C-alpha cells in the first residue's frame, strides 16, 4: 500500500523518506531474556509515530536504550546522522532528543515554575562559578521564565505556578512533564505512555498538545496502550512483540494486520471486554 512516509511498501524495518532516527541491530538481554531485538527501524521526521505492543514487548526498554538510560548488548543508532550509541543520557538530551517517563517524574519539592526553568538548556547560571554572578544569568532567567509562563498557560497549569509539583494531580504532573520537556525546544520528543492515568477530560487536551508539537515541526515518538489515541493522532505505527518489530505502517493498515491482531489486540479485538471476561468465567466453570 502506498503512503507518504515509507519508501515502498510498509513492512517491519522499512526505509523512510526522511528518517530522524535510525537504529540497527539493537539488542538488550536481561539474563536469558532478550528484551529488545530490533534489526532495523527508522523514525520518520516531523511525524507522530506510535510504538505499541503488549506488556513486556520491550517498548520502554527500547526507549531507555535510545535515550542512553540503559546500555544495549549490541547495536548502533543515529539521530540526525549522529552516532548515539554509548552516549550518556544528558548528552542525548542536549542534542534535542527529550524523553518523558512512564512513571511521571515531576520534581516534587520544586515549584511548578522551577520545574519548568530546569527544562531550559544552555543556562550560564548552571555553571558553578557563574552562579555567583547574577548579572551573567539574570537576563536569561527572565527570558526562560517568560517562556515557561507561556507554556504553563498553554498547558493550563498557570494557576499552579507557585505550587510544589507534589501538590499536582497525576494528570497535571503528566502535563507538567511534557511542558517541561518542551522548554528546550526539542526536535524529537519521546513520550512514554503519556495517557496512562490521565482522566478523559485531560486526554483531549493532551492529544491537542501532541498534535501542536507536530504542527510546530517537532517529531513525536510515543508508547501507548490506548488504541483510540493511537488511531486518532499517529501518522505511523510500529508494533513490537517479544522485543522484535512485528509490523509497521499507517494506523488504519496496521490495525488490520493479522500479525498485530494476534500479538496485541488478541482474537477478541472487536468484542466488548466485559463479554470476553464473562465467557471465560463460564468456560472455567
Amino acid at each position, binding site marked *: 500500500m502506498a503512503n507518504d512516509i515509507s519508501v515502498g511498501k510498509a513492512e517491519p524495518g522499512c526505509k523512510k523518506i526522511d528518517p530522524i532516527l535510525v537504529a540497527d541491530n539493537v539488542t538488550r538481554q536481561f539474563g536469558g531474556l532478550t528484551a529488545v531485538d530490533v534489526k532495523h527501524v527508522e523514525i520518520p521526521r516531523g511525524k507522530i509515530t506510535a510504538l505499541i505492543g503488549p506488556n513486556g514487548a520491550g517498548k520502554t526498554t527500547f526507549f531507555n536504550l535510545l535515550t542512553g538510560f540503559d546500555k544495549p548488548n549490541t547495536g548502533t543508532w543515529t539521530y540526525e546522522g549522529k552516532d548515539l550509541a554509548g552516549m550518556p543520557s*544528558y548528552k542525548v538530551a542536549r542534542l534535542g532528543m527529550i524523553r518523558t*517517563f512512564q512513571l511521571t517524574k515531576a*520534581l516534587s519539592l520544586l515549584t511548578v515554575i522551577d520545574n519548568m526553568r530546569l527544562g531550559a538548556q544552555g543556562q550560564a*547560571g548552571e555553571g558553578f562559578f557563574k*552562579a555567583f554572578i547574577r548579572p551573567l544569568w539574570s537576563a536569561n532567567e527572565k527570558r526562560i521564565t517568560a517562556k515557561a509562563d507561556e507554556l504553563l498557560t498553554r498547558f493550563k497549569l498557570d494557576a499552579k505556578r507557585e505550587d510544589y509539583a507534589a501538590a499536582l494531580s497525576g494528570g497535571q504532573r503528566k502535563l507538567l512533564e511534557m511542558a517541561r520537556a518542551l522548554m528546550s525546544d526539542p526536535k524529537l520528543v519521546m513520550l512514554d505512555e503519556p495517557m496512562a492515568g490521565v482522566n478523559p477530560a485531560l486526554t483531549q487536551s493532551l492529544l491537542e498538545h501532541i498534535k501542536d508539537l507536530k504542527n510546530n515541526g517537532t517529531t513525536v515518538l510515543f508508547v501507548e496502550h490506548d488504541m483510540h489515541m493511537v488511531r486518532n493522532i499517529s501518522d505511523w505505527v510500529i508494533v513490537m512483540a517479544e522485543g522484535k518489530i512485528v509490523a509497521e505502517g499507517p494506523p488504519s493498515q496496521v490495525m488490520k494486520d493479522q500479525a498485530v491482531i494476534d500479538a496485541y489486540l488478541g482474537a477478541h479485538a472487536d468484542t466488548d471486554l466485559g463479554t470476553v471476561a464473562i465467557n471465560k468465567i463460564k468456560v472455567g466453570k
Partner: protein
Amino acid sequence: MDIIQILSLALNELVAPMTVGYILCAIGLAVHFGFTGLLNFGQAAFAALGAYGYGYAVLVFGWDLWGAILFGLICAMAFAALLGIPTLRLRADYLAIVTIAASQALRFTVGSSTAAPITGGSAGQSQFGESFYALNPFPEGEYNLGTVTLTNLELWMRVVAWGLVAIAALFVFALTRSPWGRVLKGIREDEDAVRALGKNVFAYKLQALVIGGSIAAFGGMVFVMSSQANEPTNWGTNFTFITWTILLLGGAATILGPIVGGMVFFALLTLIESFLEILVNAGLLPFLLIEQVAQIRFLLVGLILMLLVIFRPQGFFGNKKEMQFNG
C-alpha cells in the same frame, strides 16, 4: 551552682569554637543532603582532613597560615573526589556506606603508630596555631560579653569562627538561589528526570560533594584551633552523627537551620548536664552517679530530638509545606 551560672555556661557553649566547628560541618552537610540529597555519613572525615592537613602543613612544611589553610582544604577536596568519582554514579545508599566506612578507615589510619610521623599517631598534633593567634588584633586583657568573660585570644578565635560561619552561609545562600542550586534540588528530587533534561548529574553531585566537604574542612580547622590539639578520637562516628542531628534539628534544606540547630544543640546539652548535676547533688536522683551525668545527657538530648523529629520533622526553619509531601 546557681541558675545564672548555668545559663552563662550554656551561653558560652552557644558561641564556642567547638559549636562553630560543628555548625560549619552541618552547613556542608546541608549542601550534601539538604540540597543535593547525597547521604554522606562521613562528614567527620572531611573535617578531620581539614584539621590534619592544616596541622601537617604548619608542623612539617613550616608553612604560614594561608598556605596551611589551603593545604587542609585541598586534602578534603581530594578526599571528596576520591570518594565521589567511583560512588556517585551508583545509587544514593552506596555513598552512605562508602563514606561511613572511609571515615572510620581514615580515623584508624591517622591514629595508627605507622602514621605517627605524619599525623602524630594516637597523640595527634598540637601547637599548630601560632601563626593564627599572631594575627590577633585585640589587645591583651579580659573581655566581658554579658555573662561570659573571654581572653583576647578567645575573643579572636570566636570572631574568626563566626566570620567563617557568615561567609559559609552567604556562600551557600548565593549558590542555592542560583540556577546551579536549582539543578541540585532537581537532583535531590529525581536524578533521572534531571538527566533527561540534559544536565550532567554526575558533575553536579561531585561539585556538591567537594563544596560541602570543603566547608566541613574549615569546620575541622576551627574545631581544633581553640585548644590547638587535634586527636584522632575527635573524629569518630559520633562527630558525624552530632552533625546530622544539628542539621535535622535546624532544617535540612535551609541556611539558618544548621546555625541555630548547632547553637540549640550545645546549649541544650550543657543545660541538661548542669540541671542533672544539681539534681544528683541534691540527692533527688539516687539511681544516678555524678560521673554518669555526662553520658545520660546524650540520652535525654536524644529523647528530645526524637520528640522534635516526630512533632516538627521539618526542623526549626524547614518549610512545613515541604514535609507534607514526604508523609
